[in-house]
């Protein structure tokens, strides 16, 4: 592989990364919509936003589903941030539906 072939190949892979990111973003938003729906229900019923057992369940689930190359602790760290943000949108939805 000469230099210009390599550059073309990098461009092609980067393009593929962009496509994957688009899917991730769409799925994260889909996930957030579900969190908002839960938040609305919690708001109506006055249930607590923070559900530690459920959060652990989610983390175990993604760790179990994870087949690599990312290892389970890495996946857990990434999902901790996703859960942090979900909690935040859930709370907002709950407050609006109190």
């Amino acid at each position, binding site marked *: 592989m000469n230099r210009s072939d390599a550059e073309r190949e990098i461009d092609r892979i980067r393009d593929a990364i962009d496509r994957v990111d688009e899917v991730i973003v769409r799925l994260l938003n889909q996930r957030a919509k579900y969190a908002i729906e839960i938040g609305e229900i919690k708001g109506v019923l006055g249930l*607590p936003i*923070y559900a*530690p057992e459920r959060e652990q369940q989610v983390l175990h689930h993604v760790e179990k589903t994870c087949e690599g190359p990312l290892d389970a*602790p890495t996946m857990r760290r990434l999902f901790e941030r996703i*859960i*942090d943000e979900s*909690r935040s949108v859930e*709370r907002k939805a709950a407050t609006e539906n109190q």
Partner: protein
Amino acid sequence: MVIVMEKHTAESNIERVMAELITRGFDVHRSTGSDHTVLGVVGNVETIDPREFELFDGVQEVVRISEPYKLSSRTFRKEKTVVKARGVEVGGADVVVMAGPCTIESETQLFETARRVARAGARVLRGGAYKPRTSPYAFQGMGVEGLKLLRAAADESRMATVSEVMEISQIEGMLPYVDILQVGARNMQNFNLLTALGQIRKPVLLKRGMSATIQEWLLASEYILTGGNYDVILCERGIRTFETYTRNTLDISAIPVIEKLSHLPIIADPSHAVGRRDKVMPLARAIVAAGADGLLIEVHHDPQSLYPDQFARLMDELRIIVPAVGRRL
């Protein structure tokens, strides 16, 4: 604010802290490390007392990222504030010396002192008309009559004036005569007085309380600044320590610390800090060398005051030190 949990603490401990934070309306960014779990707290964390969370099981440390004082901090304003009082600039290139008797006692005493300190290079004339006395039997001050004398003596020697305000009711009567209103150490946390001083548009000199931390002192200044009066000068005057040889211990380190934390000018008062004439001069030299924007010195015949000729000698010494730290006198 960041909460660091103890090494390998139980999940239930982490959950209790998170539940408390979330119930109180904060967002939490959890980060599970291989040893420590760290919780980043997002929201209006000024309302949290860190100690509350230090008491939770499994919490190792609570770290505040932002300081509780806002308007006085360097983060809010990068450039140094220069306070102007009747042509005198405090916080600029000049080291400003304020001198005069602790208490205004008589016309001759005051005019004579004013002439002598002005000739030596003092720019602001100090003198108390209302005195906070430890004993109710001590002389309580001359009141407005004293302020009129202060103004006349300062005008004759072309100086600005600084005098202590004790309570809200005195403020209005002082404004015609006084260019800088001083809040004494005993009133540093008299929040009603500070709030009232936030409403006027005249410089305020805020002395550090004798048991106040630097943070409490800066928070006190916020009471004045939040009212819209941005002309605040801070004055270190010694803090209570276990040492009894001197009256108070001058916290010289407060000068560079304030310089770093705050944009407000910082001066110091060696006379009240040490309480003995023979120790005032070395302290005054140290204050200027440490980078203070000015000095507040008693010149009188009380034991803690310099005699006028000693004051003139001190000014000569300061003229050697001041250029060495890149300032003017």
